[in-house]
């Protein structure tokens, strides 16, 4: 399984959004709670479409939700 180099601020954004639950975010983005949990824990990188939908829920730009860990990627090379 490929290593996930994408980190995210979903936990922080959920907290700022009146402590939105994982289930609520899952319902708003049309995925399961397990998928949200896997994304939050950095075990799964979402598709671009889902990433935009998550950013849309928090009304923030995509780059404020997800960031690419370039250091890890360079270290890998």
């Amino acid at each position, binding site marked *: *399984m490929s290593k996930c180099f994408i980190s995210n601020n979903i936990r922080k954004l959920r907290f700022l959004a009146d402590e939105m639950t994982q289930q609520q975010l899952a319902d708003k983005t049309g995925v*399961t709670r397990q998928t949200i949990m896997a994304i939050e824990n950095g075990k799964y990188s979402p598709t671009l479409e889902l990433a935009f939908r998550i950013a849309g829920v928090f009304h923030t730009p995509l780059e404020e939700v997800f960031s690419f860990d370039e250091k890890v990627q360079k270290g890998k090379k």
Partner: protein
Amino acid sequence: MYDREKQSLVSLITMVLILGSYTLYVYHKYIAGNLDILNDFKFWGKAYLILIPVSIAAQIIIHIIFFTINKIVTNEGAPAITDERDQLIELKAIRIAHWTFIAGFILSMGSLATGVQPWVMLIALIYSGFIAAIASESAKIYFYWKGF
């Protein structure tokens, strides 16, 4: 344990039960005391054709029973959404099943090439399909357990 993991576990147990009981049934009804039937291709054709609908019907019935009991006990129904991660896990599981079956197919053809009786090849084909299905469900359980 999540719904999908439970579903895969039920499929896994169902497959083992179906193949185990079907093997016993065929053995006692046809093969016991009549080993010549092993080289009768008509018998193998029937055995394959009966196994497929029987296993599909059994899978459906057992899943319905499981989700009914699960709903009563935990108040959770069958998974309503199949999202992108589920589809990706499904694809990975299918790939594992595919390669497992290919390996079984090559082994069964190898048995023919080495001059072993044809019924060995036919049994190897049934079991490679069965092992491929087990590998697929096990892979799903592993991926869901691991997170991905």
